[in-house]
Structure formats: C-alpha cells, structure tokens
C-alpha cells in the first residue's frame, strides 16, 4: 500500500481521538497535500429548521477566502454550493463548472482557478439533516476514483471530528467542577429529556451532547447517569436552565 493510503487509514482510525482542532487540521492538510491539495475549509451550509446561512467553521489556507465568499453571499450564485445539497459523492469544480451560466458565476470559477487549481468538494450530510461541505483545493490535485473515495471518507471524518471539537471548545467552566454544557446536560436529563432532545435544545450534535455527559459522569465518580444526576444534586451543582443566558 502506498504511504499516502497508509496515512489515510491512520487518519480514519485516529481522527476522532484527536483532542485539538489545530492538530486535526494539521493532520488533515498533511494528508490532503499528498494528493496535491494545499488548502481546505469546512463550511456548515445549513441546519434543519433554520434559514440557509453558511458559516466557515475551520480549515487551513482557505478560510479567509471562504469567509469573504460567505460574507459577499457569492454562494447564492455558485452551482457548487447547490450541488452540495443534491449530491452525495465528492465532486470536482471541473464537473460542476458547466452549470455556471451567468457571468458572475463563471467569474467565480475563474477566480478560484486563476492559479490552475482544481477543487474537490466533499458533501457531508449529517444524522439530523444538517449539511456541511469540506472544500479542498490545489494546483496538483489528484482526483482519481480511488483518491476521491479516500478523500471523501477522510474529509467527512475531518468535518465530523472538527465540528465536535469546535462545539466542545465553546464551553465555559463554572464555579462548580462542571462546565456550563455539562451542567445543562444533567439538568435537562433530570427533567426527563433524552440526549437527542437535549442536543437539539443546546444546538450541538448528538455526539457532542454525549461527550458532555460522559465528561460530567467522569467528574462525578464515573457512575451511571441517574447516580451522576443525584450526586450533582447533592452537591448543589444543578441550576435551572433558565439561568443560562
């Protein structure tokens, strides 16, 4: 097996245990560079029940350009953006460029490809209808079927792992031993909500909600959920969720 494919397999196996976003970004771009891509970004396209408003979440070498792209609402004329919703497999700029029929849309592709770059877009459709995309770009891009398959799996893993790290990072310690999110998890559980329901309330993925709960359990003696809630109550650590603003 070629070294880059060995690296891809390691990335697939290890990405979810990486605890720093910077390290995850470094590992992913290091892998992508072996396939000729030198910049990448992960963009959250939409979440269920909300207006479409893309957000650039993280990436390497591409985020400033991508943020400008979002701010100037260029996604509204970009067939690439629309294709993320309708396609499930990774696709290239070349494959989508013919759909750019307006001058403004054609100009987008000219700008993106001015240095001879090719782009590979990995659509990421989540469990509850959220849609993201991992955009890869580079001058020496290799987009063979096998390379594309591997980059799709690694890109999707990059998006899922990165989003979870981002959600976990957006959490503050409170005066108790628990973070804000960990406390909120226990409070809502004590009121009979399920983890998927709480994930929806807190606007985080189910995986992140689960991680908050596991961390709370570890801090309160490593017990099951109900004893963990009782222990938090005993310590006076559970406050009304309305207190969280």
């Amino acid at each position, binding site marked *: *097996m070629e070294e880059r494919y060995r690296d891809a*397999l390691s990335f697939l196996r290890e990405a979810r245990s990486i605890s720093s976003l910077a390290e995850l970004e470094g590992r992913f771009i290091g892998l992508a560079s072996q396939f000729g891509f030198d910049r990448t970004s992960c963009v959250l396209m939409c979440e269920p029940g909300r207006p479409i408003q893309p957000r650039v979440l993280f990436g390497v070498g591409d985020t400033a350009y991508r943020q400008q792209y979002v701010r100037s609402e260029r996604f509204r004329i970009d067939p690439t953006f629309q294709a993320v919703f309708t396609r499930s497999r990774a696709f290239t700029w070349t494959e989508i460029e013919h759909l750019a029929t307006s001058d403004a849309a054609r100009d987008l592709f000219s700008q993106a490809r001015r240095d001879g770059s090719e782009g590979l877009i990995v659509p990421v*459709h989540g*469990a509850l209808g959220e849609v993201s995309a991992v955009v890869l770009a580079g001058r020496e891009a290799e987009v063979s079927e*096998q390379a594309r*398959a591997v980059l799709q*799996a690694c890109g999707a893993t990059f998006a899922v792992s990165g989003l979870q790290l981002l959600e976990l990072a957006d959490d503050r310690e409170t005066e108790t031993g628990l973070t804000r999110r960990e406390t909120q998890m226990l409070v809502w559980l004590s009121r009979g909500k399920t*983890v998927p329901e709480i994930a929806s309330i807190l606007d985080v993925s189910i995986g992140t909600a689960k991680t908050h709960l596991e961390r709370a359990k570890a801090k309160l003696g490593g017990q*099951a959920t109900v004893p963990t809630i009782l222990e938090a109550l005993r310590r006076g650590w559970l406050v009304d969720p309305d207190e969280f603003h």
Partner: protein
Amino acid sequence: MIHVVTWANRGLYAAALREMHRLRRVHFVEERGWSAMTVRDGGEFDAYDDEKTVYLLAIEADGSVSCSMRMRPATTGSILQDIFPHLIADDEPSIASDEVWEISRYFASGAARGRGGFRRRAEIRLASLEVAMARGVKRLVGMIDIEMLPPMLNGSGWRVRPIGLPAPYDEGVAQAIGIEVSKAAVMEMEESQGLEPAICINLDQDKMPPLPPQEIEALQRTAALGDNQHEVLLGVVKRLLELQNDLPESELLDMVAKAQRILGGV
C-alpha cells in the same frame, strides 16, 4: 419495538418477510440501481438469505414494514469477506470468527425515512446490538455507502470504526465498518438515542395465536400496562373469529388461551 425474525419463527412473519424483500428490491435495485441483484417473486434475495439469517423488522400498526436490517454469523460466509475483502485493511483481525456477525440490507421506507424516522431507525440499530449480545457476539461488521459515514460516526449511537479504506464499486463508494458490541455500547446507544432497554420482540411461533405480529406486539404492550385485560381479550377473540371462523371450537379455545397467556405476561 423491533421484531426478531429467525428460521424458527418465520412462519409468523410470512407477509412481513414478503414485504421486506419487496422493499429491498425497491430500495436497492430500483432506487439505488444495484444491478447484480437477484429479483424473484417481486422481491430481492441473495445467498445470505438462509437459515442462519436473522431479520430485524420494524412493523407498523397497519402491518407495513418501515425499517429493516439483516444479520448473520460471519463464519459461514459474508458479503465483506466473499465479495469485498479489499475493503478490510490487512492489519485488521479476521472477521471469520464466532464473535463476529455481519449486518447488511439496512433500509428505511415511508415514515421511517428523514428526520421523522430517526427514532425507528435508532430502534433497529439498538436491536442489532441486543441480538448480538444475546448470541455472544463481540463485533458487528458491515459495508456502508460512503455518504453514510458522517451520520454513522456522529448520531447513530453505535460505536463505529472504519476497518479499512473505502473503494469504488459499480454503483458507488463502499466503506467497511466495525461496530462494538458490549454492555457499555448498548447502554450508550440507549442513552444517546433516548431509547428504552429491551427493544426486541422474540416471538415463539408455537406459543402465539394466529394473529399478525403487529397485533401480538399490541397485545404485549397491553399486557405490560396491566389493565383492561378482559376487554382486550374479548377484542382478541373477535379478531380470531374474523381470521379463523371455520375452526373447531377446541382449536379456537387453544388460541384464546395463548392470547390469555400473552396478556398474563407469560
């Protein structure tokens, strides 16, 4: 609840199994365009539909099948080992083990699709862990289409791990995954998906009255509630008379006795 259908109780599920095979044809052959499939009697079948196979079926109140999955011991042949061995990395432990079962043909139809079907699909995934645990299985393996990887990794409730690199096949890109089976994994699945334990219904066909499985499920639910049992039993007798009105009285009484045992929680 999810019905566990085996070789031993398949007699109770003739209609539901026919419907499942038909939906497999619709989903895999017509919608996804898988070309190398065997279609017979309007349904899709393959070599892994045999006496060792266990089917998990979500059966709705009207008798329709909304979600299904197939499970099978990997020691006696598996899609991954026999057809797609290149999807498993060389350094992965062999899947030809008594402790490994393969899952396949996981699909949802109708109301079990989309956001509204999240819970039904989760029930099937939990059922797969419960069935595996009950048979001493430590690991499930399977092949998914690459676009399913993100929801599998985050939100499925399974402890999923890629066990090789993806590779293109005729109709898409496939990824092999392994799923942990353990008490902790089952508890995590229940908690993360908001499900109650013991999601499976294992019906013994010799002890069941000749009612459709979804009606037996309803009967069991009523038994669990523990009230209005006489009214329910009366309803069951009427239903049995509708279905089997030419039976001798002794056989009818035997069926009523079976229904009574279910209501009694036996």
